[in-house]
Structure formats: C-alpha cells, structure tokens
C-alpha cells in the first residue's frame, strides 16, 4: 500500500454541503432513462431458455418448433458462440475471473449447474412471442445428482461439479484443494499456544443463507450490430468497460469494435458488473441484423444472476480474564455457486482485522455447489464473517463481565498495527468510533418493557482503489464539463462534481457532470468497492490541478510574465483567482481566463487516469434495540443507530443515505432474506413476495453518526462509504436478541421460526404446540 500522504488539510467551500442532485428532477418526473427505456426502431425481443434442473448434462437441443413460431427470427444455443479469445480478465475489487466460466455461465455448452442456467435464447417480434417460442425449445437432459450444501460439497465422495477448475481469485487467489473447492489459509503466531494461554474460550458453529442484492431493476440490455461489425450495447451496469471486455472475450471481438452505453442503473450493489444477457442479445442481433432487447423476469434475476454466499463456519476465539484476545481459529466454507470465485478472501480478511489478535488461523474454502455463480454483494464476504465473529466477541465480553464496547476497545486494531497479510493499518478512527458509540445517548437509554434487548457490533471493510479516468473541459463562459466512466448508482455525479468544484475553485452550479460511454472516456473500473467517490474523485482532483496549471500559463501569456509568477488561490480561498506574485493587486478570475482561451491558444481541457492505492479502509459500528415476541419468534427493530468513519463526507445526506440503505440490507440478511431450494434443487422462493426484503413497515428511522478521520491516501481525505454499512447489522441484531430473550442465534436469517426454535431449545417447547 502506498503510504505517501496525499491528504492536505484545507478549508472546505463545497465539501460537506448538501446540494440537491441535478438528476433528481429527471428521476422524480420519470424522465430518467434506465435500461428498459431504450426503444430502437425495428427492435426484436429476446427470451432465455433455462434449465429446470440443478445439475444435468445437455444431450440435445431441438429448436425446430420454436423457429416455426410466426414472429420468431432466431434461436441460439451455446454451440453458436465462437471460441474464447482471452482466458482471464480483471473483475471486481482486485480479483480476476476465468472467462470460460463467465461464458459458460451465460449459456451452458454441455452441462447445466443450477436451476435457471441458460441453455438457449430466442429473438422474436415481441416479448410474448419470444416467451412462447422459448417454451417450445426442446432440451433433452441427462439428470445428474446435485449438491447444494457446502458441508456436503466438501465431503469425500461428494458430487463433483467440474472435472477441472481454475481456482477463484478475489483479492487473493485460492489454491485448488478439494474436488469442489479452492482453499485460502492465513495464519500468524502460534494458535495452539494462544488457546493454552487463554482463560476463556468460546467455540461456535454457524450457518448463513444465500442472499440476493435485490436491486429493483432487473438485468436489461439492448444490442445493435451494425453493418461495419460494430456492436453497440445499451445496458444497465455498474461497469460499462467490464461489460465491453467480457463481450470482446466471449464474442471474440476487438475491444474497439464494441461500444457500451451505460444507462441509468436501478441498483446494483455488486451484482451488475458482469454479463448475463448481453452476449446472448449481441449474438441474436448479429444473427438477425436487427437490434435485440432482452430483460430478465424477477424469477430469472433470483435464479440465474449472482447472489452472495451462504456459509458454514466454525469459530473458536480465546481471551484472558481481563479481555485481552489471545487466539482465534476460523474454519470457513463459503458458497462459490456453480463456478469458483466467491468472496472467501475478503470474508476471511475482514473476519478479524478490526481486532489485534496475536495468534490466528483462518482456513477458508471457496466451495462450488449447484447454485448460481456467486457475485459480490456490498462488502462481499464481510457480512457473513462479521456475524460469526462479532457474536463470539460479544459472548467473550459477557463471560469476562465486561461492557461489550470496552471489550472491543481493549482489542481494537489501531493505525500502524500490522494486519494478518502484512499490511499496516493507515490512520483511521477505530478507538474514536467505539468511544463515540459508548458516549451516544442511545447506548445508555432505558429500554423499557419485557423481551427487549440492545446489541452492538463493530465492522471493517477494505475498500478499493483501481483505475478511474476523467475529463474536464473548460467552456468559454467559465463553466466546466466533467465526464467520467463511473456509473452513477446513487448520486456520484454530484459528489464528483462537488470535488471538481472544490478543486477548481468554481461554483458547483458551473459544473456539468456526466457518465460517458466506453468510446468516449478512458478506461474506468466498475463502480464497485465504494471506490467511485474515492478513486474517480482522486482522478478529478489531479485533472483539476492540470487545468489550473494550464490556466496559469494562459494568464502568464496575457500578463506577459513568467508562469512561475502566477499563483492560483483555489486551494487557499476556495475561489480560483489568478494572482501576480509580484503584484497582488493584479488578479484575473477563472471566468475571465476562460473567456480569453481563444486568444491564448484555444480550448483548455485535461484528462487524468488514476489508480490510487491509499483506500484508507472503512469502519462502522451499530447499536440496535429489538423486541422479541416469545410466542412467534418475530424480532422487531425498535431503534437503530449506525456509526461510520467516512474520512470526509462529501455530501453528508448521501453518506447518511448509504449508511441507512446498507443497514437495512443488513437487517434483511439478519431477519428475513434467504434462498429456499426444494428437494429437487429448484429455487422455491423466486419472487419478491417470497424472497422477503425489508419494507418500510419493518423498520424504524435509522439514525446515523458520521465520523471523519481523514484518509491520508486521498487529497480531500475521502474514504469509500458504500460498503461497510451492510456489515455490522446481523451481529448487532443477534446480540440484541441475546440480551432480549437470552438465546444466542447461530444462523441467518434469524426469522421467526429460527428464533422460536432457539427459544424452544432453551426453554422447552410449550405443551400446546404440536409440530407436524
């Protein structure tokens, strides 16, 4: 990690304010254009044929009946795709993926690996005809045995998904270890001795459910293949360049022949930076010579896009009587789904990093099962591993007779500590945050009433840097056009414009901020890993410095002096005035320089491509009050306070929104959300009625406390903010349930049935209850 400090303290003029977003009016009036709002002349509609089996060999596919339907223009299968031209490409958050796996996940060639795996696709005059024809594609399968539980999948003699596989890489590569799993081992110190030296040891087993990102907008793409063999794609994505790169590989095309135009995106959370429909729609467009739109139904989204891993874990942690943590041993089985590459590495790394523990062993497995290929979901892997560790930490605190925050404070990692992977911790307010939790009125407020409890938890996430490009163009009237390649998931056009305005010393209203397509901007990594405001912002600040330097040169030209004599006050005063060092009374305003661009050499613009490394990490903590109904097991969230250190809150309202949204997703994991597979291996709850995400009625207002310890790796001190808020809630809820009704939950979701089972295990089942 680059520890060179980039951060320079300054007085803020724009950062920290809460202007209304410019795209807000488009969104409240229905004018914003999302993926499904693309309507091209002569457009066809595509529909995918999907496997009803969790594991089967494709023996034959007969498309003749489908082709005979009036209005059907083409049917494709895996056999229509060319050989791959690239084996591995970069994927989210520092990982890489096997292109063969991505291609096979888009359309099965020989074997289907999960209920919903695509096997063919139809293009027709309208979506209903396409759907009718898709039902007429006859696929003959040889049904194979399947495995959906990670514990079963790692056993000797388990059903094997792939004869051979490329081990997954996500932050760190795994090593092929078992027929169905890659392995990642991390260790420091002497764990055996550590446990001997501990006075108190807690050992627990856990399971968590497969969960989905649940974006409200389905996957949608429209592809046009023109006469010059150029492919244009209008799609909903977090990463237009990723879609381009995946398409080039799968379709065996050169990158310059594919233009991906990112539409407004209706939620992503890590699930929308990979191809599912795009290669199918592209090939159908090529085959028919007409544009093809494809959209997933909600059931298809749940069955056949990438959810996040359910896990099985064994956790053993020991401490001294005074609370000093001595040793930890984690055994983690994370679902990878049908292909390798689940979030085992970040799951393992984030499990314990917020605590200094001298002796640690983490034995992690990326386990393939007959479920869809896992995709990152907001701080991937961290929510699961936080739940299992934070509940044990809470139990240790209880056994030591210590306040749970005091226990965490005693063991908190601080700046300079070395993480298990050898990385030093950059400055971050770990202790300050935990102290803020303890001092907060919520922490000591009376709970009142029976079956009520309060729980806390504390969380860590790395964040990501990676590549971002931007362009700044100065207009003759002094206004500025800012273009980036970063998809705007939640208002980043505004937070990026705010950084541009701050850096250039111009009014925010003078900046027009837009997202460009892949033909119009330099390579930019996906809007994932809470990297957009951080990394794209970094690029903008650097581009702004170039702009101001160029303007200084123009001013020097006008004043007929050396450029070394021209200063700019943007940083000092927040307003870009150019001043003559030798004569402070001689000044020229930004707008005046812009107005005189033509006479001094023409337009002024700058681009910058950054790859900042100083992500600075993210931390968060929660206080959660619950009431448990002992009759039904239902858990009601009564009050919730979320704490987070964001370095510098560019737009505090948006930061609070990220915190609240992340918390509520975490509460969904905690209480309701899970994939239910029936005994045939089919997803039984593939609708938003049965895949139960939180509604407004399930929740109270979510209070937020924003802390600001500047990130030394960013000129404005910014850290990513979008991921860590999802991490602590499940553990906070579990710890609150313990304090409410005395049971320690060891599984997610903690649905009414799960809580009731735990209560019955503790207190015995009421005689009046008969279970069939």
């Amino acid at each position, binding site marked *: 990690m680059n520890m060179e400090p980039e951060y320079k303290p300054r007085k803020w003029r724009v950062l920290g304010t809460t202007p*209304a977003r410019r795209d807000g009016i488009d969104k409240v009036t229905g004018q914003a254009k999302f993926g499904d709002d693309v309507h091209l002349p002569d457009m066809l509609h595509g529909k995918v044929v999907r496997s009803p089996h969790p594991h089967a060999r494709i023996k034959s596919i007969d498309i003749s009946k489908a082709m005979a339907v009036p209005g059907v223009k083409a049917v494709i299968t895996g056999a229509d795709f060319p050989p791959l031209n690239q084996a591995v490409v970069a994927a989210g958050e520092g990982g890489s993926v096997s292109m063969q796996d991505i291609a096979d996940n888009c359309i099965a060639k020989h074997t289907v690996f999960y209920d919903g795996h695509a096997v063919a696709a139809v293009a027709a005059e309208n979506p209903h005809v396409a759907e009718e024809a898709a039902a007429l594609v006859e696929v003959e399968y040889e049904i194979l045995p399947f495995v959906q539980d990670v514990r079963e999948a790692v056993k000797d003699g388990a059903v094997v998904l792939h004869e051979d596989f490329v081990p997954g890489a996500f932050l760190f590569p795994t090593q092929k270890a078992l027929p169905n799993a890659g392995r990642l081992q991390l260790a420091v110190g002497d764990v055996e001795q550590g446990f001997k030296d501990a006075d108190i040891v807690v050992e627990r087993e856990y399971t968590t459910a497969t969960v989905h990102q649940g974006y409200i907008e389905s996957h949608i793409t429209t592809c046009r293949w023109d006469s010059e063999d150029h492919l244009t794609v209008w799609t909903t994505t977090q990463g237009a360049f990723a879609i381009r790169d995946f398409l080039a590989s799968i379709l065996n095309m050169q990158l310059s022949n594919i233009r991906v135009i990112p539409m407004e995106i*209706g939620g992503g959370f890590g699930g929308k930076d990979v191809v599912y429909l795009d290669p199918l729609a592209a090939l159908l467009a090529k085959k028919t010579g007409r544009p093809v739109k494809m959209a997933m139904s909600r059931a298809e989204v749940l069955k056949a896009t990438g959810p996040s891993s359910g896990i099985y874990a064994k956790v053993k942690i020991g401490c001294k009587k005074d609370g000093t943590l001595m040793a930890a041993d984690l055994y983690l089985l994370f679902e990878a789904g049908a292909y390798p590459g689940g979030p085992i590495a970040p799951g393992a790394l984030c499990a314990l990093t917020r605590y200094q523990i001298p002796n640690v062993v983490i034995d992690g497995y990326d386990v393939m099962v007959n479920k869809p290929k896992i995709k990152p979901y907001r701080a991937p892997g961290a929510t699961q591993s936080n739940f299992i560790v934070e509940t044990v930490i809470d139990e240790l605190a209880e056994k030591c007779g210590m306040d749970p925050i005091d226990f965490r404070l005693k063991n908190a990692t601080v700046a300079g500590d070395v993480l298990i992977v050898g990385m030093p911790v950059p400055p971050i307010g770990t202790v300050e945050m935990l102290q803020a939790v303890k001092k907060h009125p919520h922490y000591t407020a009376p709970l009142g009433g029976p079956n009520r409890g309060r729980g806390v938890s504390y969380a860590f996430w790395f964040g990501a840097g990676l590549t971002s490009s931007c362009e700044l163009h100065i207009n003759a009237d002094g206004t500025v056009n800012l273009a980036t390649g970063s998809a705007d998931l939640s*208002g980043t056009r505004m937070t990026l414009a705010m950084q541009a305005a701050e850096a250039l010393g111009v009014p925010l209203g003078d900046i027009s901020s837009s997202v460009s397509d892949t033909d119009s901007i330099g390579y930019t990594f996906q809007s994932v890993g809470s990297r957009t405001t951080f990394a794209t912002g970094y690029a903008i600040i650097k581009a702004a410095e170039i702009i101001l330097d160029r303007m200084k040169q123009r001013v020097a030209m006008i004043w007929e002096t050396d450029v070394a004599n021209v200063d700019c006050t943007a940083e000092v005063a927040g307003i870009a005035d150019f001043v003559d060092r030798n004569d402070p009374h001689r000044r020229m305003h930004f707008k005046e320089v812009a107005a005189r661009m033509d006479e001094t050499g023409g337009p002024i613009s700058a681009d910058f491509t950054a790859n900042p490394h100083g992500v600075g990490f993210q931390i968060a903590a929660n206080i959660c009050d619950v009431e448990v109904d002992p009759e039904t097991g239902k858990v009601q969230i009564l009050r919730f306070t979320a704490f987070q250190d964001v370095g510098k809150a560019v737009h505090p*309202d948006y930061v609070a929104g990220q915190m609240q949204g992340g918390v509520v997703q975490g509460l969904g994991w905690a209480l309701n959300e899970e994939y239910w597979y029936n005994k045939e291996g089919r997803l039984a709850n593939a609708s*938003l009625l049965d895949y139960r995400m939180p509604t407004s009625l399930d929740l109270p207002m979510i209070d937020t406390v924003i802390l600001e310890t500047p990130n030394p790796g960013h000129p404005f001190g910014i850290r990513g903010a979008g991921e860590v808020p999802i991490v602590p809630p499940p553990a906070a809820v579990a710890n609150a349930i313990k304090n409410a009704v005395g049971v320690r939950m060891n599984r997610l979701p903690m649905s009414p049935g799960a809580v009731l089972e735990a209560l019955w295990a503790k207190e015995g089942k009421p005689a009046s209850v008969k279970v069939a």
Partner: protein
Amino acid sequence: MAKKTHVETTLNGDAREFLVEPRQSLLETLRDVLQLTGTKEGCNDGNCGACSVLMDGVLVNSCCVLGVEAQGRTVETIEGMGTTDNLHPLQQAFIEETGMQCGICTPGFLIASKALLQKTPNPTEDEVRLWLAGNLCRCTGYDKLVRAVLKASKAMEAA
C-alpha cells in the same frame, strides 16, 4: 400474434386511444405501446410497487392490470404528476430530502404517496410506513423517503 383491441381512456387528463393485445398488461401498454416509460417495472408480479399508477384514483400495480381494462377509465402516471418547472410537492420533497438513490422505484413511490395523501392528508409516520409497505426500495432504507412524504404533507397542508 394476438388480435388487438381498441381502447379509449383518459390518460393524465388527456383523451387517448390505442390498440393493445388483450394479454398486454397496463404496465406494458404504458411503456411499450404509449411510450410512457416513466412507470417502471421492478418485478412484474405485483410485489414491488415500482409500476404503481392511479386508475380512477385508486392505487394499482399496473403490472397486475390489463391494458384493455383502461377502457373508459382514467389513468394517472408519473408523467402527469408534475413538470420540471412545476413539480408536485411530493416530487419537490423527494429531491430536497434525498428520498432516492438509484431512482428506479421513485415514480412508484411518488404515485403511492400521492394516493396516500389524497386519502390521508396528514399521515403519521406509522401510517406512511404501512401505506408504502407495498413499494420496495433497496437503496435508501426508507428513512429519507418517509421523511419526504411527511414533509410534503405539511407543505401541501400549508399551501
């Protein structure tokens, strides 16, 4: 291809005629036949509320209504709620309170909120939460949405 039916309706205050297949939902009719893409599809099975519209003043999921059912009825969509220059107080409040992130659910929430305020001009927080429970938002955690609706109700009362 199914035979199309001629439908006459009042859409956002204007008389409209269109041809629609009997199997096409009102959502599909609005978006694909009439090119009014402000109404959004989230689940297409009545569970997320993204496609909310008012039909004869009643809140419905347009994915669960057929286009032919618009015959002789009034339909109000997000396109009829307010204009860029003259936003509805709810639209104004959603912007001011940052009551959106990605914005795909926003039109549905606005229509549902409008229906609530027509019925209950001064709702409590609990009433807002109960009424909006048929609309899913995955980004905001609902906090700022609920605040926006409460703020709009006060603004409309004062107006």
